[in-house]
């Protein structure tokens, strides 16, 4: 069966949008104009490809067309934001046989620059996330709004504000100089990990996992890794950060390897110790472990790598009883030395409750209550430890707190099931 032009176009959009936009932005230096020109090119593609068939190199066709559309727009509107020299640059960029372009050779890959612009720390985090998914992930406004469960106009406004700030504040479009790159790479990785965790442990809505967000985060992380590796001669990235990029990729792959086992046939949540481990994705685990191996060779452990090692210890355990909890406790202690947050302390307490006893775990939870008073996983962990320690009433109370704080429908079902099981056990 042949793919219809619209579905090819949809695939092309997600694949090529970021690169085409990045190239145009490199020439134009104006976010809005670049976006308009790329949109024009995709509209032209709908008509042109239907009649003449899909070109061999859709990305090159789109870039050339977008460039022409940009020239049209500049001639027509003559915007102040565009340097008069830009038109000359654009006209000079005319390739002789546009449809046979070698994309790799003729168009430098500007997506890394776009990544740094989208994740500039002067932009609020929510804008960084939306802009990254929109420009580099090729997601539409409606898709991002649906993924983050915000109304479409809210999300649209978020994107408009981000682009406006990029323009008026003079947020640069470039690969940052060496002394800034460390801070900026951190900011890129934070955005990618937030996209992933929102996909993997959806905080609200009906579904437990929103796979498209996980896929996007992993795809973009691979892209960042590839782009940085390719431009290794120009970017002097500290080893610790090279290791963390790989570490984050490994962490996301190892976590998502459990996605099919984590959700039951009725969409319900299945906790780690009750999962059917034969459903874990071997390919993700293998790739994650191989990446982790390579990362640890660099000898610059960081938060993502340590979390990936913990995830790997789970991945390697054939049964819940095989889990090396003492080792996991030790790794959380290492992690706390470099990255001390209430949530890591919570995970550490859970590991201690497994490695030593629920009572030891509860002792570590107590001082966290104030910081995590509105965090459902805290009460879930507490309830679970009370249950295992035989304090049924306290367990029930903690489950009820967790239930009140949970906005995800599937997690709510899971907690109700736990409360019911407590009553049955009585």
């Amino acid at each position: 069966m042949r793919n219809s032009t619209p579905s090819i176009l949809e695939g092309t959009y997600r694949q090529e949008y970021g690169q085409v936009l990045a190239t145009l932005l490199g020439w134009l230096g104006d976010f809005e104009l670049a976006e308009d020109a790329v949109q024009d090119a995709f509209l032209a593609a709908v008509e042109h490809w239907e009649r003449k068939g899909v070109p061999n190199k859709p990305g090159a066709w789109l870039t050339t067309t977008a460039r022409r559309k940009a020239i049209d727009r500049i001639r027509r509107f003559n915007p102040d934001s565009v340097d008069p020299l830009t038109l000359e640059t654009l006209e000079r960029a005319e390739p002789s046989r546009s449809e046979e372009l070698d994309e790799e050779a003729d168009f430098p890959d500007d997506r890394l620059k776009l990544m740094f612009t989208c994740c500039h720390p002067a932009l609020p985090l929510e804008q960084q996330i939306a802009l990254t998914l929109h420009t580099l992930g090729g997601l539409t406004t409606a898709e991002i709004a649906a993924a983050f469960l915000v109304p479409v106009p809210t999300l649209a406004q978020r994107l408009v504000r981000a682009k406006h700030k990029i323009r008026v504040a003079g947020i640069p479009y470039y690969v940052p100089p060496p002394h800034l790159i460390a801070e900026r790479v951190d900011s890129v990785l934070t955005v990618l990990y937030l996209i992933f965790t929102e996909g993997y442990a959806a905080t609200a809505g009906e579904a437990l996992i929103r796979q498209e967000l996980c896929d996007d985060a992993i795809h973009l992380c691979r892209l960042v890794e590839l782009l940085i590796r390719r431009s290794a001669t120009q970017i002097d990235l500290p080893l610790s950060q090279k290791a963390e990029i790989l570490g984050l990729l490994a962490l996301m792959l190892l976590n998502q390897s459990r996605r099919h086992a984590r959700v039951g046939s009725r969409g319900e949540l299945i906790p780690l110790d009750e999962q059917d481990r034969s459903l874990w994705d071997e390919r993700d685990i293998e790739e994650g472990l191989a990446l982790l191996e390579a990362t640890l060779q660099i000898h610059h452990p960081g938060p993502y790598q340590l979390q990936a090692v913990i995830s790997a210890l789970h991945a390697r355990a054939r049964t819940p009883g095989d889990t090396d909890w003492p080792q996991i406790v030790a790794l959380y202690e290492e992690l706390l030395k470099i990255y001390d947050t209430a949530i890591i302390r919570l995970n550490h307490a859970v590991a201690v409750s497994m490695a030593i006893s629920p009572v030891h775990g509860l002792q570590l939870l107590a001082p966290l209550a104030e910081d995590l008073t509105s965090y459902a996983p805290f009460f879930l962990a507490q309830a679970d430890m009370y249950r295992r320690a035989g304090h049924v009433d306290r367990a029930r109370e903690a489950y009820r707190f967790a239930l009140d704080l949970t906005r995800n429908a599937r997690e709510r079902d899971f907690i109700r099931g736990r409360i019911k099981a407590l009553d049955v056990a009585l």
Partner: protein
Amino acid sequence: MKYYLLSYVDEKAGAAVPKDEMDAWIRKIKAWTDAMQESGVLVRAQGLHPTSAAATVRVRNEKMITTHGPFAETKEQLGGFYLIDCKNLDEAIEWAAQAPGARFGSIEVRPVWEMDLPAAIEAARERGMLQTQ
């Protein structure tokens, strides 16, 4: 692009600094502004007297009300501003990071709204936002 670097510091803590330390502090600010001057980015630098020297004016129902002190009680107060002309936000951020005040106060980097004021007034008048005299 032009940016204002607005330096916010805790005046109370500043007032408690002994004289010799204060002299060293002023030398540091001088070194920083000199560096900006030499690299050609500095347009204008201006320190401010403390907020205790300030007056705040409001007009309500066409009645003028003058009060002493700053508009709002905050932990850090505006202590000086530096107008610089840079390539982009990152360059401005880098100069801000070198400000002595960044070590315990904070530096707000604000892009200047390049506005043709007479033209803006004319446009506002056309849209009926300003009453024609």
